[in-house]
């Protein structure tokens, strides 16, 4: 415990690094994933802007990227990282990888959620003379808002998980802290306190997501 207290400044820094990585990748990856998910939903056969070429292309891309385990993905995209942000190690590099991984995961969640929207509602909007893009953004997305929020909550938890894995690659954050100050020094107090904080972050995120979704669903 004493050792943990002496590392308190590093611990605080680790928490902020985790928030930084998770925050940026959930927001940026979330937006990018939303765009990809909307494309997947809108271009599928029979949908608002069905376009076979775009749908098949994006679908294959998502299918290729998404199943790669994050630690492997982190290594696989190192050339891309180098080209885009100039480095392959550290918090920014991990954040870049997290953002991409989150985007691909979000795209499927969004697509699946939007598909569940009642086609009758889309038909009513078409019958009113609305443009496809306007139907997508002002009808389909709002109708699916509750499940969309729950989907983002799910992704948030997954990103916290991935950000901790990134500790293995010197990514900073709570994962790194648990490894360097905890398990490598056989200091289990540090490990468990770190685990407890990660659980707290996840719980808080889940709680907030549930509350927002309940409001959107009005139940």
């Amino acid at each position: 415990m004493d050792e943990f207290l002496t590392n308190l400044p590093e611990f605080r820094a680790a928490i902020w690094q985790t928030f930084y990585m998770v925050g940026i990748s959930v927001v940026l990856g979330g937006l990018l994933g939303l765009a990809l998910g909307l494309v997947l939903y809108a271009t599928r056969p029979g949908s608002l802007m069905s376009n076979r070429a775009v749908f098949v292309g994006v679908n294959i891309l998502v299918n290729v990227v998404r199943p790669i385990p994050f630690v492997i993905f982190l290594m696989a995209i190192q050339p891309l990282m180098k080209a885009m942000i100039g480095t392959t190690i550290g918090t920014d590099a991990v954040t870049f990888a997290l953002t991409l991984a989150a985007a691909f995961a979000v795209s499927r969640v969004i697509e699946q959620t939007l598909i569940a929207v009642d086609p009758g509602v889309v038909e009513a909007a078409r019958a009113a003379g609305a443009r496809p893009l306007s139907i997508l953004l002002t009808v389909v997305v709002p109708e699916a808002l509750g499940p969309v929020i729950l989907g983002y909550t799910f992704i948030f938890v997954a990103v916290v998980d991935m950000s901790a894995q990134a500790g293995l690659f010197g990514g900073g954050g709570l994962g790194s802290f648990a490894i360097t100050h905890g398990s490598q020094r056989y200091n289990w107090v540090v490990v468990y306190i770190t685990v407890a904080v990660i659980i707290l972050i996840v719980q808080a995120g889940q709680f907030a997501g549930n509350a927002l979704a309940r409001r959107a669903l009005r139940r």
Partner: protein
Amino acid sequence: MSHVRLSQVTKSFTRGRNGPRVVALDDVSLEVAKGEVFGVIGHSGAGKSTLIRLINGLETPTSGQVHVGDHEITALSERDLRGVRQDIGMIFQQFNLFRSRTIAGNVAYPLKVAGVAKAERDRRVARLLDFVGLLDRAHDHPEQLSGGQKQRVGIARALATEPSLLLADEATSALDPKTTAEVLDLLSRVNRELGVTIVLITHELDVIRAVAGRVAVMDGGRIAETGTVYDVFAHPRSTAAADFVRGALRDRPSPETVARLRRTHSGRIVTVGVQDRTGFQTALARTFLEHGVAAGVIFGGVGELQERAVGSLTFELTGPAEGIDAALATLRADGVDLTEEEG
């Protein structure tokens, strides 16, 4: 002047990949006049859902033309269609209200699409909700309303842009009889007070009977028969129309009923179609009497269609054989619809 015109419209599609070719509509032509309520009746799978969606271009036909007013729907691009759709309201079996919007928000939606300014939008939404009797529910959400109320919101939303044409897709099929009557009353008001032309599709004769002036009977993707509601159902020429009338009125005995009647009645059994003219029944009774024939009603029913009598009566005739023959011959000569029940 015709408001909606379908000319030799055919619609076919393949079910699934490499599936069988299904013909939903087969050489359908019809005209709906401005200001009328036109009903299309048919069983599920008869093609009526496809038909109504051709009118606002939600579906495109394989061949043939669709006209609404001066527009040839089938010749318009999707972009041009959007403008025309703002002059065509549509209501649906499952209401299809936006759950994410309030009642007022639902009614305001088509106005937003049409680019109507906020102040004018609010004014019109209030007037429409007042028209359908739901002004006090403006800030509620759809799930707080009953089925009948939801459909009234659907109607208000469909009328928001003051269209001249309203399409009703099985609008009362999800409602109980009482709310069905309320919604049908409202549709009649929409037609009467606002002069909106209505095309409605249904599988229920009662809906046609309550609101429509003319009707087309659909069967297997084709129009079996078109005419005024009275003509089509009082004197059906097609088996499809006759089936609907039989199902709704149950006035003509089925073969099983005839067999049962036969067990308890020894005389000749004759079914007479009721005619909507003064003194028809009296004339009928007098003819039998003059020929020394006793006629007793043993089955049947007489109802009303567009305020005119429809139905049929089944008589047991007893008396001298030549008297019965002579009476029947007289009636047939008078143009009475008469069927002698065999068996």
